[in-house]
């Protein structure tokens, strides 16, 4: 059987999954954590603790503010030292609750037993409420609050739940290990999500470079009703929402529309696992699997890390930064963010910490575009990156809008492939955000 994939564009960078066979290891709890109040899209949560307060693991410390926001819970037990600004992965100062760790005492409501709890008698709305309370957000990177995704607006209907287990980013293996090691929990999570959405069909899309996980999932999923496993060709960006929907269902999300418009909801595999923990075990989202990786690291690993753990602590645990000039990335090499320092902390959306060294860490100098058309052929959205770059440079915003610059999913395939090392995506990002601002102003009129 030929493996399914999206039809247009895409690249296949070296996979570098050096941690794929390393079981998830529990990272020791650090002495102090700094839990960001903004670990999701939308408004930051409002802190509801003060300096000196005692908190337990799972204690609510930040309340969601506004529609697209999520609750924040303490990932450790101890005393709130201060509420202060720390840099996030982009280097922007963001408010965080700093907690000095004392022991490891959990909220009594959390069920820490290892027993698998399969049945879920809750109603869809109760499930969504529990997910909301637990502060669950999309763990693939964007951090969209999951409960918002599950509330289907009036007039829309959903028939398919898609679980994004592609993990198409090179290096990252967090989802892979979770799929393999927590298979049953994850499948129960998928069943719960199915129930919350009232759909009969869930499809788990997973790339062919995880054969062990595919085998385990396929065998185990037989016991669950309405969950299919679909093996996808290993191709980046297979895990991009629109590309995944196209690969799995053949449906094409129209330009400027959402998965809902074609009857799909896409949830990340790690998120489905967090849903299980929240709904069946009352455990809010306070830890996640983080792949700490890089060829120059002494001890790459898949780590279960508490949110708020400083990146520097995680890097030290993996053997520390190599001397060679280097780049530390939150996420994978294709879409991750290069961090200016190691002062930020692990959030709900940190899928990996990637250390790259030497020449690889520095971008080659751009040369003239030779019109080789590689960027056009790899763009999964069928755009013309070379042209969008030029239009942005010349500030031709109308033309850029007409050429659908806002359709760009920022996958970076164009910059990756460009023989002239043009900063295509850098320019397109600037153009995209400018065009989006112009569009907003126009519709506000």
């Amino acid at each position, binding site marked *: 059987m030929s493996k399914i994939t999206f039809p247009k564009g895409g690249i296949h960078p070296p996979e570098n999954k050096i941690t794929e066979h390393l079981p998830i290891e529990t990272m020791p709890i650090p002495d102090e954590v700094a839990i960001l109040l903004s670990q999701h899209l939308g408004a930051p949560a409002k802190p509801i603790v003060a300096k000196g307060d005692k908190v337990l693991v799972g204690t609510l410390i930040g309340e969601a503010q506004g529609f697209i926001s999520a609750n924040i819970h303490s990932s450790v037990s101890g005393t709130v030292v201060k509420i202060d600004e720390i840099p996030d992965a982009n280097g922007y100062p963001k408010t965080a609750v700093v907690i000095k760790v004392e022991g490891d005492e959990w909220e009594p409501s959390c069920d820490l037993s290892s027993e698998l709890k399969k049945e879920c008698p809750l109603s869809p709305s109760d499930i969504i409420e529990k997910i909301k309370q637990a502060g669950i957000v999309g763990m693939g990177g964007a951090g969209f609050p999951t409960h918002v995704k599950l509330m289907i607006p009036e007039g829309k209907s959903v028939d398919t739940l898609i679980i994004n287990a592609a993990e198409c980013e090179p290096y990252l293996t967090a989802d892979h290990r979770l799929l393999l090691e927590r298979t049953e929990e994850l499948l129960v999570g998928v069943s719960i999500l199915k129930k919350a959405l009232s759909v009969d069909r869930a499809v788990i899309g997973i790339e062919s470079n995880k054969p062990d996980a595919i085998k385990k999932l396929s065998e185990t999923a037989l016991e669950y009703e309405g969950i299919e496993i679909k093996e996808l060709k290993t191709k980046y960006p297979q895990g991009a929402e629109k590309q995944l929907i196209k690969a799995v269902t053949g449906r094409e999300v129209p330009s400027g529309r959402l998965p809902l418009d074609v009857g799909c909801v896409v949830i990340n595999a790690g998120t489905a696992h967090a849903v299980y923990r929240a709904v069946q075990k009352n455990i809010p989202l306070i830890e996640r699997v983080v792949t700490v990786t890089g060829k120059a690291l002494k001890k790459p690993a898949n780590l279960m890390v508490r949110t708020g753990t400083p990146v520097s602590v995680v890097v030290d645990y993996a053997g520390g930064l190599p001397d060679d000039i280097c780049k530390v990335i939150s996420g994978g090499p294709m879409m991750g963010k290069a961090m200016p320092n190691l002062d930020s902390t692990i959030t709900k959306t940190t899928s990996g910490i990637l250390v790259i060294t030497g020449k690889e860490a520095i971008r080659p100098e751009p040369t003239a575009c030779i019109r080789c*058309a590689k960027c056009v052929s790899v763009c999964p959205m*069928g755009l013309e990156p070379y042209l969008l770059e030029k239009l942005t440079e010349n500030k031709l915003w109308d033309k850029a809008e007409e050429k659908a610059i806002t*359709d760009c999913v920022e996958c970076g395939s164009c910059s990756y492939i460009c*023989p002239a090392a043009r900063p295509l995506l850098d320019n397109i990002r600037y153009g995209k955000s400018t065009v989006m601002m112009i569009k907003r102003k126009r519709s506000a009129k």
Partner: protein
Amino acid sequence: MNKLTVSLSPHAKAPIDTQKVMLAVILALMPSFIASLYFFGVRAFIVTAVSVVAAVLTEYLITTILLKRKNTTSDLSAVVAGLLLAYNVPSSIPLWQIASGAVFAMGIAKLAFGGLGNNPFNPALAGRAFMLVSFPQQMTTWPQPVVTKMMLNPDALTAATPLGILKEHIKAGETIQQFSNKLPDYWHMFIGNIGGSLGETSALAILIGGLFLLLIRVISWRIPFFYLAGLVSITGIFYLIDPTRYADPLFHLLAGGVLLGAFFMATDLVTSPMSPAGQIIYALGGGILAALIRLFGSYPEGCSYSILIMNAFVPLIDRALPPSRFGKEASRA
């Protein structure tokens, strides 16, 4: 401690650059170079060397001295242009003429337009067109292959090109059957033992290099395929109408420069369209034009002009035929 590099994503880069792309093209041109040495001997080497050196030197002097820019010759694009220009001239060409062609190709066709990536026309073909109007006699005198191998002044022994023979006799009112004994057989045309420009006579050598470029994906299959398809279909139609006046498509494939043009000139990255649909239209148009010029034009060969003409349409084609967008059709429905 802070020595971290910060940049926007992506943080990975495919291990290709312009220099490697050009190096691949140079490698792909080597079989033809070897064939030209075999058929035209030492003179082929000298002409090629002069062309390449003149091209590189022109680019170097213009960029560094005249424009005070960075020296860009290390991207090897000037080497490619020099090689291709040499492949488009007879081995007997006077050296100052090939040198002037190379200077025109780089100075006017390429650098005057802004250098690599900005030239609308293929520099080598523009150089050839310049030479054809400036030195019509020397550009259409073809030394006999193999026989002239060791000669430094080979234009004493000339051989017409297959297309030249065809044109001349058809003009004289003969049918192909009457003069077919004067045409070389297909095997000689395939391996390159015929009169013609340095790099165009050996179909075999061009195909080896062309297939290499296809395999490593420096060029797309669409342009050579549709260029040749355009040529074959038009010459095929006329062959079917009157085989006494029109040569068969296989003859047209093997004669003259269409194979070199299809694999190495029409596929020039800079001067060909970006989208798959655009590449098909451009190549098909080029192939049809080449056939029409050969059949009805005053020159026996039409390859260079067919590509130069289509080069002029590339901006229009790029605008008219963008790639198909994801979700565009769906958003109309």
